[in-house]
């Protein structure tokens, strides 16, 4: 199925979880469809068709 990861379309297997997209939680945060998902819930968060996932980290700026 197709999801949207950081503004780009991406194919993932049926039954994939947020954890499958994000092997490491260190310094990284994720939002699913506009809501933050704590790292502790990534493994239990199954992705659905057309989900929008944002993955961010600290970057130089501001």
């Amino acid at each position: 199925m197709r999801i949207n990861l950081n503004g780009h379309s991406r194919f993932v297997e049926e039954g994939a979880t947020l954890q499958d997209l994000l092997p490491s939680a260190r310094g990284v945060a994720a939002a699913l469809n506009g809501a933050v998902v704590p790292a502790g819930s990534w493994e239990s968060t199954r992705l659905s068709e057309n989900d929008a996932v944002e993955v961010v980290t600290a970057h130089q700026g501001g």
Partner: protein
Amino acid sequence: MQVAGIDLPSRLWIGTGGLSNLTTVADVVDAAGPGLVTVSVRRTCDTGSGGLLDTLQALGVRILPNTAGCLSARDAVLTAQLAREALETDWVKLEVIGDETSLMPDTVELLDAAETLVQQGFTVLPYTTPDPVLARRLADVGCAAVMPLGSPIGTGRGIDDPRAIEAVRAAVAVPVVLDAGIGTASDAALAMELGCDAVLAATAITRADRPAQMAAALRAAVDAGELARRAGRIPRLTTARASSPMAGRVGT
């Protein structure tokens, strides 16, 4: 100085915007001895350890995530929530800009986002126009400091309207941090003389010919400005006032 009950080791805060490479960070941080270092929050495909975050954590500085570039309260709130999760801090420098040309704060969205984030337990430090009324409104909704701009982001013009900064200082009891517009050391000293509690500089340092040297200069200027303010400057007069006694002059 203290913000939200936390002691910060310096009144000079630095931003990482404009940094050309990570190797400069350590030199700049070493020269600045900053109270806080701000970072932005951006999309990443790299889920390994973050280079900038690792570097700053190794240097032992307090990290202040910002919502730089957000154009709405909604985006700023989500960015702050993501920053809290990624960086394990509930402090946020709240920026909501009105457009990408002027980079001026959208004050309506800013106040809305500030109130929402305070209610969600964040320690909110809003980047704002130098407006005493808005500064009071931001403090009233629970912001831990206010960060008025000296001049627009990246212009390096210093403080366009010193009286506006003084008015913000007089309007609120929370710390006032001069943010944006710093070009060189004298701008930072003036900010402190006007009563600011701290100064945040980013591109003044990162885009200087010698960033670490400018960081050292700003550090000294912030200290000098703070000392001068506490010393109590003499009033400005319209006419001359002799400093030497008139009595006892030769020929009188």
